């Protein structure tokens, strides 16, 4: 059985080739250097290692280089890939979306889903509004372009801009909107802000400010809120 010193020496011995090639970590290189200073046999063996290193490099350098054929063959292969392989790969939308979705946390996904649902409901409401209250026409099937007039958002009412905290769950947001009798009418805007209607009537400035202040108090889910037009 080897003693601790013998084991250590054997360990150092196995590291000599990497020390000669300069590919040891600083810590191991220091260990080897220290051992080489103290152990003459090891130092002699290190000289043999350096000899092997030099001749291995010499041997490899005499092997020559590949001809231009290798590069030509590669480029031909790449061309073939370009016209066949790469074009053949069809775009898989489901896989693409799946891959992107997997990057988000469940909470982010839940919040995104709520936003999407709200957007759909809002859009449906707007379309229904356009359909039913078409000015100057009682014909329900009147054709309109997709760009709805901004007036349809309903200028009457009181509005606020609101941003929710990343921790806010879909349930929290729904509960919050219900508690304040508010509804999302637009968004998300840059910065993740939403335009919400806090009243169907135009409230006096002070009343609107009081509602906004109340909302600010719910700091667990509200990160920003301010009155807006």
């Amino acid at each position, binding site marked *: 059985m080897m003693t601790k010193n013998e084991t250590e020496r054997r360990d150092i011995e196995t590291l000599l080739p990497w020390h*000669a*090639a300069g*590919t040891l970590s600083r810590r191991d290189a220091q260990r080897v250097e220290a051992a080489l200073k103290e152990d003459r046999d090891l130092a002699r063996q290190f000289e*043999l290692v350096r000899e092997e290193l030099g001749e291995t490099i*010499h041997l*490899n350098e005499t092997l020559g280089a*590949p001809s231009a054929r*290798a590069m030509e*063959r590669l480029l031909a292969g790449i061309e073939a890939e370009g016209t066949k*392989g790469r074009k053949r790969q069809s775009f898989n939308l489901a896989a693409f979306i799946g891959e992107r979705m997997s990057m988000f946390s469940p909470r982010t996904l839940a919040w995104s889903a709520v936003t999407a649902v709200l957007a759909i409901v809002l859009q449906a409401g707007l379309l229904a509004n356009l359909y039913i209250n078409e000015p100057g026409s009682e014909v329900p099937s009147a054709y309109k372009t997709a760009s709805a007039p901004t007036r349809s958002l309903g200028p009457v009412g009181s509005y606020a801009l609101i941003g929710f905290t990343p921790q806010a769950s879909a349930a929290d947001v729904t509960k919050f909107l219900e508690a304040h009798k508010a509804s999302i009418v637009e968004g998300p805007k840059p910065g993740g802000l939403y335009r919400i209607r806090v009243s169907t009537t135009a409230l006096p400035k002070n009343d609107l400010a009081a509602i906004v202040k109340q909302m600010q108090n719910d700091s667990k889910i509200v990160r920003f809120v301010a009155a807006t037009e």
Partner: protein
Amino acid sequence: MQATSDEALIGRIATGDKVAMQVLFARHHVRVYRFVLRLVRDQTKAEDLISEVFLDVWRQAGKFEARSAVSTWLLAIARYKALSALRRRPDEELDDETAAAIEDPGDDPETALEKKDKGEILRKCLTALSPEHREIIDLVYYHEKSVEEVAEIVGIPENTVKTRMFYARKRLAELLKAAGVERGWP
């Protein structure tokens, strides 16, 4: 001026940049070729294989995770390709070739000594090592790969890398001794 890093080149290759592919090829093809040639011992085959190695890089660049150096990745692909090519050869041919190579330095030690060139004998003994030993010696001494990198390329544990290198050197010493060169180790 600083040359574009290998990792940056791989990023550009992933987007289909052929010039980046040519730069990477120019930078590494000779070393990869020599590594493969030492394994397959056939120049034409080695040239074909390096084209395949770099074509794989073209295809897989988007999957490169930069957990290892690009040169380590290239050598790992090259090794896999070389071994696959060797496996396609008849076993008999492989055995004959290895046997012939191992007999080389021991054939006529006196003649070898007459050359009075220790370096030449050493190089001859290096070519006579088994493919396994030749490979590890090349990776450590010529390709300057660390213990961890060799482990990654060859697919063996780090401790096995160390012991394999030790025994490769020991075998080299035996071949040298047979050729009349006594080095006092092991």
